[in-house]
């Protein structure tokens, strides 16, 4: 999530340019990966302005924590949990959001790689 927030900040600041399909050339290193810049900055200048912006965006970008906090405070003690048979109309936008952030976190990525190795070993033993 931080990396995707950083990418947005890097684009806005002009650090990198947005890449379009038609601009792509073959071969490597045509445009700069903001992930690489993010990793280097985080280790060598953690207070960099773009990192601070990315942190602020990540904190508010996907979930407005402030408003969510206010909502929870307002309804505190009056929350009723109900298991519905069908999707409720208000849940549809949320269900549609699932899968729209396709980048798995570091831990999930590692798990996928570990599973891939396990598959390879299982095939070799079969």
């Amino acid at each position, binding site marked *: 999530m931080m990396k995707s927030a950083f990418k947005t900040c890097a684009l806005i600041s002009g*650090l990198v340019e947005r890449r379009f399909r038609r601009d792509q050339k073959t*071969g*490597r290193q045509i445009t*700069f990966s903001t992930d690489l810049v993010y990793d*280097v900055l985080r280790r*060598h200048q953690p207070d960099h302005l773009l990192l601070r912006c990315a942190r602020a965006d990540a904190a508010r970008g996907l979930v407005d924590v402030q408003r969510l906090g206010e909502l929870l405070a307002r309804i505190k003690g009056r929350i009723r949990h109900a298991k519905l048979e069908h999707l409720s109309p208000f849940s549809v936008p949320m269900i549609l959001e699932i899968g729209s952030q396709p*980048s*798995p976190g570091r831990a999930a990525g590692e798990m996928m790689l570990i599973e891939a190795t396990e*598959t390879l070993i299982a095939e070799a033993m079969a």
Partner: protein
Amino acid sequence: MSALPAHRYPFAASPCGGTLVELAGVEVLLRPSGALWIASERLLAVADLHLEKGSAYAARGQLLPPYDTRETLARLAAEVGRLRPRTVALLGDSFHDGKGEARLAAADAQALRAIAAVAEVIWIVGNHDRDGPHELPGEVTSDLMAAGLTLTHEPRSTPRLGEVAGHLHPAAKIKGRVGSVRRRCFVTDGERLVAPAFGAYAGGLSVKDAAFRGLFVRAPLAVALGERQTHAIAWSQLVGE
């Protein structure tokens, strides 16, 4: 390559998180850092450092944070500290361009000298650094023979037994239920190997790219770099970009 039958590659997880593979009959350790270790020769090899890539882009107006050299050398020094190599082989494109050495910060040049003080540094030249460094210590060459393997920069375009090369910056991508993961990787068919780029700002090229076609005698094994460990991945599980 998919037409060829799946080959069972002997590989083993090492306690260091690396993967041990057999390359032309020689046991080599593929480290999670992206470095290759030949224990019998106490030789540490890293490819495509692309030092001073950040400053090369900055000179052309794309202002990138300049810490890439420091980051790359810190990771290299950490590997040297852990493994105590006799030889450190840099497999070419160690500098992003011919003037990179001149732009090197004093502290970074010192970090390279500190490595050269404890190990013999061999600068294998690449297409980005054809002349090798002028001031820094170490030997400059186009190929290095070690343990019966040939260490070089650019892989020969046809199968070649015992070759260890860089240049292509291999990266592996797999797809799962929650999305896809793309990591730098080693790629080998047991006869030759292409090592991942070690440089902090060096990008990656999918092993499914046409540039890898024809290099291997059979569908190769990818060994992807994870957070703390390497991951052996079958060719059939890899996807293109």
